[in-house]
């Protein structure tokens, strides 16, 4: 697999030279493999949003380099706009950026900016709308007539329609009801599986990350605390709790059980795996009991 994003010694300072200068990112280095689904977590103010707005050149690093597909975003003569189509960024509460008369036109805004011909634009609008489950009837409505969850899906479709190679989403499920959360996140997962593109998902919910991502990047105080597979990160549940982050409820239960002295794995973070682990532990216990 090849690297799609590479970050080298990236630092970013807000308001440099002012009394309220703050270091939002402090010498960060990591890389993302093409096709990964990376969950980014961290407490509020740990630098998640600042970090992701570096991937398409909305923020310029104070120092360090950001490479996308092997090319430096800020190299002399680099075309920033081409990186914006390469790395599709869905910001927090993206429904506030809708402006067109109809949803279809709004989704077409990105593809039109790419200079595609009308037939291709329409094809992409249809395709992106299908991914997020928007009916033709909804597409012809004004975005301002839709519900919050529907608006959010229109905004996400607007980025998907650009066919980026990396899709970055900043808390796409924030402020939605549980059903809306599951719908949007499983649509994103579905999109990831069908297109094979790289997805970076910022989320506050450990459950969501455990369910959808295969790697986790944990941010803490402008730096990276952990960056590993989901299993390995949740196996360090105690460290996560120490960073002020939560772990999935099922992991918490297993952590307690381990503390009580049971011999069960530490990297349990989904319900199906938890059921298997308990059955195994029970079987071992009964088997052991029979031996004795």
């Amino acid at each position, binding site marked *: 697999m090849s690297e799609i994003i590479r970050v080298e010694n990236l630092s970013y300072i807000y308001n440099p030279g002012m*009394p309220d200068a703050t270091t939002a990112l402090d010498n960060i280095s990591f890389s993302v493999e093409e096709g990964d689904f990376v969950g980014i977590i961290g407490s509020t103010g740990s630098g998640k949003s600042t970090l992701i707005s570096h991937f398409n050149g*909305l923020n310029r690093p104070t120092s360090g380099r950001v490479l996308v597909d092997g090319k430096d975003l800020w190299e002399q003569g680099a075309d920033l706009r081409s990186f*914006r189509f390469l790395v599709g960024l869905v*910001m927090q509460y993206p429904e*506030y*950026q809708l402006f067109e008369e109809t949803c279809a036109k709004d989704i077409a805004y990105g593809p039109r*900016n*790419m200079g595609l011909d009308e037939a291709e634009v329409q094809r992409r609008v249809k395709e992106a709308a299908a991914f997020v489950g928007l009916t033709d009837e909804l597409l012809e409505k004004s975005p301002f007539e839709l519900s919050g969850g529907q608006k959010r899906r229109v905004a996400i479709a607007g980025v998907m329609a*650009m066919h980026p190679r990396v899709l970055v989403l900043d808390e796409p499920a924030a402020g939605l009801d549980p059903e809306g959360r599951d719908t949007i996140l499983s649509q994103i997962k579905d999109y990831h599986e069908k297109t094979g593109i790289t997805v970076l998902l910022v989320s506050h919910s450990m459950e969501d990350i455990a369910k959808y991502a295969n790697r986790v990047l944990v941010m803490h105080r402008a730096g990276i605390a952990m960056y590993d597979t989901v299993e390995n990160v949740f196996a360090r549940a105690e460290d996560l709790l120490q960073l002020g982050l939560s772990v999935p409820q099922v992991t918490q239960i297993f952590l307690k059980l381990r503390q009580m002295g049971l011999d069960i794995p530490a990297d349990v973070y989904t319900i199906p795996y938890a059921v298997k682990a308990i059955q195994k532990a029970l079987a071992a216990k009964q088997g052991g009991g029979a031996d004795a």
Partner: protein
Amino acid sequence: MLKDITIGQHFPGHSILHRCDPRLKLVATIAYIIVLFVAPNPLGLALSIALLAALYKIAQIPGKMILKSLKPIVPIVIFTAVLNLFFVTGQGEPLVHFWVLNIYAEGVKYAILLAVRVCALIAGTSLLTYTTSPIVLTDAIESLLRPLAKLHFPVHELAMMMTIALRFIPTLIEETEKIMNAQKARGAMLDSGTFTQRIKALVPILIPLFISAFRRADELAMAMECRCYHGGEGRTRLKQLKFTAEDFRCLVVITVALVVIACTRFFVPGLV
């Protein structure tokens, strides 16, 4: 970038100028502007600039902040200076004669004095906003306009409107930046193209911005209703403005300084 707008920008600090009663600062700034017009001679201007430099030093505001506040008005200053340079006629021979344009020694003097005066004016008013947060400043305006309430002038409502407007400038700037970023992420081209293209490119930013401004106004009105806001009648404040002994000393110092500067008009000839 939008962040570079310095109008009403506050530069937090703990100097005596930051602590000073905002009413005194407001009145002193107005007096300073008047003095700039009363004493438009080289000595007076030099003294006003020296006073300003001293005040900036006391407030511990870096020099580059002054330059930042002067940057937007550079075209205006150059424009007026150039006009004066060519259109002021003086006695005697012109310094330069070119086609129908004559430059006289007086013209040069006028142009320089005028440019310096405008710069001093902007730097002086910027000092007020750097050292005083907008909210405190509106408190001062409300307090100073209080006597007008007797004439049924809606002083409190005016101050509240100003407070809300000032309070929402940074919020709206932040909001604009967010929306701009969101549309840039979708490939919007904001800083290239022909004039009409650029105007059209603003639509995707202005529409969401207006919608969010209306939404905010609605939410704020609702929140104020919920807390039983009913205007100025009988309303008390958490922070009362108090004129302390320290403020009084500041008043004396600034009055003396401004009177001295104003008096230079009787000794040094300057602009009319």
